[in-house]
């Protein structure tokens, strides 16, 4: 019996690795196990080689492992390609007859997927369901869980479809139980209720936006941000949200700003390239003091880069994007929970300060699934900072950019107030009309930049910390590396490791950083980029120079084994 297992499902794009992976994810989760799953996919719809990897455990898991214990090869190429990655004592599951392989390598477990699918469901489209049955059988999960997941996955389909899939799953399950003659992949009994949520980072952002009252979502599709739009569109009727696919990212941010000016909470998202197109609009939001939430889900760049892979190279870009100086907030959620809560907070803060709030994510957080405890739906309350409709009547001499002590002017909704509202991208006076007056310029810069930044710096998200007093080595990260850093620090050896993790990058928590890191030795940032952008930001904002950076910029996320190897080197 084992407590933890890593499974890789590999094949060509279009063969359904993700479908198998997600069905298995549900099965393991409902059986009470924790899991972390991620897909590694190419930027193509058919062919190539993609894989989906699941880490199943009796303990909470936050990251991937380097080597799978079990690989399911859905095509012949996967056999040669992935066999070297297999763990010692690992098993590669394949259909030798279909792949026309005669040799019998150690570690092969031959499953006649094709025959089992035909004999049980009557069609080779059931191969994926057979595969789910095989894995459930090898790990000795109660078949009942798989049966239930199939029922729910095909609930909109005919009774017959559920029946055929159940038969196919049972065929795979029974085959594994009678032919896989050892218990080295049998998971130890689970301890959880199974009533947890299974979702990825983009789902969490979408759900956060729905909860926060986003009424207008607009974007141009761009991997890996697109599934935020998919999820919001899926729920658009139920939650009365308009989702509008824009003609380009420039239109997207300008539409989001237009909707917000007119009184609705709005959002857009893209990846680095699309966000680059939005940058002038971001500055417009800053100048016109219009709230807007923008998620930038990073991928390796420059230019088109690796469309479906991961990188954290847009940190410098996001904290400074936009011509001119204006206030903004940049969040970098480290977990699915933070993605959900910080998205809600982003809407509140955007409205409170009348600023753009950016959410920096990346493909790794976007596409990684983890089981999480049911969200606390009362944790982030909606806070409104607009003149309510009932108070808007009989407002006279309204000034959109009225100078105030706090830097924020009362915001009214056009058509609600009896007066009119002038908003302008030119420098403007309090009424919102164009001005060239030097003193007014100073007043407005003080208002929309200094005062807002000062007040924003009073409500910064605190970095997460672990074991700082005791550590021989301190790892510092932001965004999606949270999970792998946390697990690394919880390992015993090679050195006592602590961490500081930032979920807010701007305004940068400079004071707290100084308090946490001043005088510490052996500080290394862990970043999915080539330049060590976080290390530079820390230096610039707090004066602390870290000892070095553990950088990964091959487009792949950190995993626990990779980071442990790097830490060993640094510690040595």
């Amino acid at each position, binding site marked *: 019996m084992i407590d933890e297992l890593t499974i890789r499902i590999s094949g060509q794009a279009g063969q359904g690795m993700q479908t198998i992976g997600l069905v298995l994810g549900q099965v393991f989760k409902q059986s009470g196990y924790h899991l972390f799953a991620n897909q590694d996919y190419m930027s193509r719809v058919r062919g190539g080689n993609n894989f989906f990897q699941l880490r199943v455990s009796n303990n909470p898991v936050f990251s991937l492992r380097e080597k799978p214990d079990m690989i399911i090869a859905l095509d012949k190429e996967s056999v040669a390609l992935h066999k070297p990655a297999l763990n010692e004592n690992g098993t590669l599951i394949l259909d030798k007859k279909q792949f026309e392989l005669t040799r019998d390598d150690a570690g092969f477990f031959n499953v006649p997927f094709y025959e089992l699918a035909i004999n049980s469901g009557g069609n080779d489209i059931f191969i994926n369901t057979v595969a789910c049955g095989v894995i459930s059988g090898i790990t000795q999960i109660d078949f009942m869980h798989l049966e239930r997941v199939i029922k729910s996955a095909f609930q909109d389909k005919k009774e017959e479809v559920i029946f055929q899939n159940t038969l196919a799953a049972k065929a795979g399950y029974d085959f594994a139980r009678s032919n896989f003659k050892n218990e080295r992949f049998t998971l130890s009994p689970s301890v959880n209720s199974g009533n947890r949520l299974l979702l990825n980072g983009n789902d969490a952002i979408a*759900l956060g936006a729905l909860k926060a009252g986003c009424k207008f979502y607009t974007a141009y599709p761009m991997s890996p941000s697109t599934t935020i739009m998919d999820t919001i569109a899926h729920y658009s009727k139920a939650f009365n949200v*308009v989702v*509008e696919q824009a003609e380009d990212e420039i*239109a*997207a941010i*300008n539409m989001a700003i237009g*909707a917000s000016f007119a009184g609705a909470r709005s959002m857009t998202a893209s990846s680095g390239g699309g966000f680059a197109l939005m940058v002038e609009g971001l500055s*417009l939001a800053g100048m016109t003091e219009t709230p807007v939430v923008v998620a930038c889900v990073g991928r390796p760049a420059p230019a088109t880069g690796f469309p479906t892979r991961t990188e954290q190279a847009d940190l410098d870009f996001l904290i400074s994007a936009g011509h001119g100086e204006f206030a903004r907030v940049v969040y970098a959620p480290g977990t699915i929970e933070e993605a959900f809560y910080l998205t809600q907070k982003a809407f509140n803060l955007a409205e409170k300060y009348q600023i753009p709030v950016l959410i920096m994510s990346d493909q790794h957080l976007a596409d990684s699934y983890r089981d999480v405890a049911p969200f606390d739906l009362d944790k982030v309350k909606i806070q409104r900072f607009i003149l309510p409709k009932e108070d808007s009547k009989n407002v006279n001499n309204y000034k959109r950019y009225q100078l105030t002590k706090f830097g924020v002017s009362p915001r009214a909704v*056009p058509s609600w107030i009896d007066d009119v509202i002038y908003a302008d991208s030119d420098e403007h006076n309090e009424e919102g009309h*164009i001005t060239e007056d030097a003193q007014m310029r100073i007043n407005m810069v003080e208002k929309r930049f200094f005062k807002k930044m000062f007040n924003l710096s009073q409500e910064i998200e605190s970095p997460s910390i672990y074991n700082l007093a005791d550590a021989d080595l301190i790892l510092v990260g932001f965004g999606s590396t949270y999970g792998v850093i946390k697990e690394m620090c919880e390992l015993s050896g090679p050195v006592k490791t602590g961490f500081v993790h930032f979920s807010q990058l701007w305004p940068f928590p400079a004071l707290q950083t100084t308090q946490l890191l001043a005088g510490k030795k052996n500080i290394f940032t862990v970043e999915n980029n080539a330049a060590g952008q976080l290390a530079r930001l820390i230096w610039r904002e707090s004066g602390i120079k870290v000892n070095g950076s553990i950088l990964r910029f091959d487009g792949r996320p950190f995993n626990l084994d990779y980071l442990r190897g790097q830490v060993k080197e640094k510690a040595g």
Partner: protein
Amino acid sequence: MNPDDFKSNDQIAWCPGCGDFGILNAVKKALAVLEKSPKDILLVSGIGQAAKLPHYIKANCFNGLHGRALPVAAAAKIVNPDLTVIVTTGDGDCYGEGGNHFIHNIRRNADITVIVHNNQIYGLTKGQASPTTDSGYATKVQPEGVILEPIHPLEMAIAAGCGFVARGFSADSENLAGLIVEAVKYRGFSLIDVLQPCVTFNKKNTYSWYKERIYKITDETGYDPQDKIAAYRKAAEWGQRIPVGIIYRAVQPSYGEKKGLDGQPALVEADIEHIDIGGALKDFI
């Protein structure tokens, strides 16, 4: 109501004699005829001389980025349909910088009116060619004369599926006001391309040049603006005779109608403080 009800306190920064004044008067006249209260009107603009117009009218104003008025306007209308949304833009702003938004917002068909101050030249940047400058016209940047063919916004609009395509003349603000009234009443994206002399930079398309050529479509008997093929021919007419008036008109469902928003409470009215996502979360268990 009368046009003075829409007078703003802002100082006008146009050149004396600018065609923009005629358009400004026409907009005020039209709003008076439409009996719209200033608080229920939103004027959206980008950048350029035309884009300053909203400041000179008492109504809500969003003066945004160069070329980007249309997406702002469409979204504002979608979430807050109580607003009458009018875009004032120029030939550079709408057909150049914002060309992509022009095409796709015609397709989107939100219920907005777009008034293009088409003076066939760049004013604010001091006299370069615009997308509608006649071929051969010499400027500082194109000293040998413009070699690019001008685009044909009315034909483009008809081809893209716009259901209300009109042309006006800034010096005839009475007629232009009438077109604006019709355009605002039209449910969907309505376009009025307004021919407008630039007294400073366009030495060719002057008041007298236009006056010699312009005629009202309504003065011709038998023209049917619902005939799309006839509309193409009319839209293409340029040179010795230039038609003004409603060139094409078709009834087609607006964005709000197709999206099921019409007749529903405005999105800005939605109660967002009591949203229960518990049901959606069950999909992830």
